[in-house]
């Protein structure tokens, strides 16, 4: 078990001491206009959590600016008074990244949702951070273009949140994550300066600060404009759902597809529980009771797609598929995806509460990891549903529990944590796309050594020396995680009564 390096501790700023005073509030009100300020206690409480409802902190103030200048003005006030701030998009994050800080403010980007320009010839668009991921594709659809990263939450999550989390989705296997589709950012630094990062060209000269901000989970500043890359819709798309009698076979099929040199647009796997939830929610036509279903999608030039589609079916048959369903038309294809994309949100149909995990394993360990997860689930006496991006080994085990049963939430949390740690043991990672946030900060040392953490802390201190920008997220601190950081301690803020669990 690692302990912190001395330099790391030195780099950690003191917790911000600023408070939201009447004067501060009046200045903020002047900066954004009265409609942009939320101050009533009941209203503030609706901002106390994101998609991870287990952690809740009520902010002292919520600000909804409408322009980059307003964001910068608010951040400058925070910097002046040492008041911590947390950016928030749609609040769908699953790692508590947008969890407010007590006595701090939330900067909500939900009013900045204009598509500022679309450049059809160069396949680019400039958008504000509150535009939804699907909103970008909808805005450019008349030009036969789309924005490729497709998190399941795409109808609601914002591009600002996607940039912060470097979000991915089913189609990232072939097309890459958000970072591969963002050319430039307008960025408000932690002291309130407005800067441009990146440029219109895909490979700008000099250090790529755009890439540093991408995936930084709102800890370096606030993104207020994003230049995204757009792709042309592929000529042909073919989708199938193959059922398997066990996950091992399905896992082998995935490995074989990739080994055959085929790069599918997406390969997703759902297990029996996940299928059950999806079918109850949207009747997407998955086979109830099927232990493992693979969704495979190919896209590209028609002739190539047809040829590879045949080979994928052949590989599925070789791995003892029990049934192959081929989407006959775009409507059926949409239905298959609607089911897959509703999977997390549909868990409410089969369980009162759940934890979504997000771990990555080498693709070749799929089968054995799933078997281990099943054993762990049986031992813990808790159901685990599995939905995941099988193509790149990004697992999303959903640990189901009932918060009303005393002790079950804790058991579920332990199981969820044990599952990510299993991923690291298998040579993988603690997060594929949901981020570290509040949830996994204390698990970071499982994956990173003292030197890695020190480098991260240096970067953060360089951007935000005062430590007012989304403090308490991502990097473990003695205050959050104890002197010897490890994942099994109760959250100290929780012990101190600052945050609570549902």
């Amino acid at each position, binding site marked *: 078990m690692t302990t912190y390096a001395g330099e790391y501790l030195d780099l950690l700023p003191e917790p911000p001491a600023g408070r939201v005073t009447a004067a501060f509030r009046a200045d903020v009100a002047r900066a954004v206009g009265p409609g942009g300020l939320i101050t009533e206690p009941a209203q503030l409480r609706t901002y106390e959590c994101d998609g991870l409802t287990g952690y809740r902190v009520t902010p002292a103030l919520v600000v909804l600016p409408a322009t980059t200048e307003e964001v910068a003005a608010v951040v400058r006030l925070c910097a002046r008074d040492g008041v911590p701030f947390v950016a928030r998009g749609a609040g769908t994050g699953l790692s508590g990244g947008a969890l407010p800080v007590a006595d701090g403010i939330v900067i909500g980007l939900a009013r900045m949702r204009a598509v500022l320009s679309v450049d059809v010839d160069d396949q680019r668009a400039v958008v504000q951070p509150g535009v939804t991921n699907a909103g970008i594709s909808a805005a450019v659809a008349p030009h036969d273009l789309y924005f490729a990263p497709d998190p399941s939450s795409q109808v609601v999550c914002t591009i600002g949140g996607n940039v912060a989390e470097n979000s991915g989705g089913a189609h990232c296997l072939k097309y890459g994550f958000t970072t591969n589709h963002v050319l430039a950012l307008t960025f408000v630094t932690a002291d309130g300066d407005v800067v441009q990062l990146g440029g219109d060209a895909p490979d700008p000269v000099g250090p790529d600060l755009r890439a540093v901000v991408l995936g930084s989970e709102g800890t370096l500043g606030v993104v207020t404009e994003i230049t995204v890359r757009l792709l042309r819709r592929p000529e042909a798309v073919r989708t199938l759902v193959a059922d398997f009698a066990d996950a091992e076979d399905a896992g082998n099929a995935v490995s074989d597809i990739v080994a055959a040199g085929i790069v599918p647009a997406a390969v997703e796997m759902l297990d029996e529980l996940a299928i059950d939830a999806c079918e109850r929610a949207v009747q997407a036509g998955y086979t109830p009771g099927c232990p493992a279903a693979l969704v495979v999608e190919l896209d590209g030039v028609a002739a190539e797609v047809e040829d590879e589609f045949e080979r994928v079916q052949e590989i599925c048959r070789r791995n003892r598929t029990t049934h192959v369903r081929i989407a006959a038309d775009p409507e059926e294809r949409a239905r298959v995806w609607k089911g897959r994309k509703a999977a997390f949100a549909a868990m*409410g149909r089969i369980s009162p509460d759940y934890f979504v995990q997000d771990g990555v394993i080498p693709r070749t360990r799929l089968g054995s990891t799933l078997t281990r997860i099943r054993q762990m689930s049986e031992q813990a006496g808790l159901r685990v549903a599995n939905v995941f991006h099988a193509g790149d080994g990004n697992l999303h085990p959903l640990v189901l529990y009932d918060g009303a049963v005393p002790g079950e939430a804790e058991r579920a949390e332990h199981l969820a944590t044990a599952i990510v740690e299993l991923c690291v043991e298998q040579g993988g990672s603690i997060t594929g796309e949901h981020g570290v946030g509040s949830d996994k900060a204390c698990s970071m040392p499982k994956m990173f050594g003292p030197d890695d953490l020190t480098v991260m802390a240096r970067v953060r201190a360089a951007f935000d020396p005062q430590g007012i920008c989304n403090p308490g997220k991502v990097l473990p601190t003695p205050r959050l995680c104890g002197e010897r950081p490890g994942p099994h301690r109760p959250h100290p803020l929780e012990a101190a009564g600052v945050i609570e669990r549902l």
Partner: protein
Amino acid sequence: MTAGETGHETSRDEDLRLTVAPPPAGGDGAGLFDLHHPPSAELISDCVHCGFCLPTCPTYALWGEEMDSPRGRIYLMKLGREGAVALDDTYVQHFDACLGCMACVTACPSGVQYDKLIEAVRPQLERHHRRERHDRLFRAAVFALFPHPGRLRVAAVLGAAYQRSGARRLLHRGRLWSLLPDRLQAVEELMPPARLRRLAARTPEVTPAVGTRRRRVGFLTGCVQRVFFADVNAATVRVLAAEGCEVVAPRAQRCCGALSEHAGREPEALARARRLIDVFAATDVDAIVANVAGCGSTLKEYGRLLRDDPAYAERAADFSAKVRDVSELLAELEPVAPRHPVEGRLAYHDACHLGHAQGVRAQPRAVLRTIPGLQVTDIPEAEICCGSAGIYNLVQPGPAGELGRRKVEKVLSVAPDALATANPGCLLQIRRYWPGDLPMFHPVELLDASIRGVDPIAAARAPGGRRRPPWLRRRHEARTAEPGRF
């Protein structure tokens, strides 16, 4: 905030007085709510806070504020149940701002029944929150007028006189207009053009089927519908008869209580429901047909509304089981009456209380597609409410106006020759913000025209055709601010 801070005064408003059960004081087990059907903790806990409902919520689309989103409202209900917030104007305002459009129910993958939740919350607020005086009076006036066809007829005659007298023009020319409070402007602008001759029209009690009788159906004539949209009722009866239905429309029927129910006026809604059930009790019909989406959705809810009333619970459930929107019934029946062409591009607007609340989307389209020559087109962003929502555009004219303009912009984008929707409220609302002349119909009117062999879209297109009087050509800019800037 602690539970201790939640003291609130109980409403003493006579016109809202409860006849069902005396309201227990808040804070006795359900937080702010009394124990007469508080929003269910179980239904609240179904929400996993995923946010999938946010983009389809009209108020979130307008303001981008969490507490005016479905997820935020459910959160406020949860806080209310915990007694962790005060029942004050701030709290009530977020539920008042909800249009009850139920788009969130359609959008939610977890099957959260927001419809049941909000319908539980509204009567609680009516019981325990005293609104400001002007708000109370305005609401009382609305409910003293709308659900009463007799009074509405008188108002319509006066309105017609006002529209013709030149008083209207005078009012609009001067600055007087802008001095009217928002809500009165809304009432004035939404007033349908009254056609005096038709105000007297009544639906016959029994209309025999043409040819072989395939069904015997009851018909709800509606309160506002009967007065301002007598044409739609007449068309409905003709189409049903032409398709082999004997149509029974009891004279004694009154308002179904939908407006009251959507506004949380539970005792009033229940009384109206019971009366309507009684009126239809003796008719012995196979189905009860509504042609107004808002009414139909409430009729389908009678079973739940009257679940506590031993004398009515079962009858109400039976009644609800028979209710069909007119398009549902027509889609079930193999067409027998020959259709004649109606040429043009028709935008079909899903009324929230048909699409979201009743899940009836395919049937009206299917029925319209039986008309040769008619191209039925969907409108982008179809799931977002037009802002009409019962009496919403009267009591919340600001957001209703923004939503109306937003909807009109989307309808304009498909460049239709005409628009069809199954709710008179939507029709008035869209017409209010429409920049020029657009023929608007209830789907059943188009079907009626097609069966009768007339083409109302072509007629409207011809010079001197069905045109809107000049005063109805709105000065409103059709385009709202900047795209995407709501």
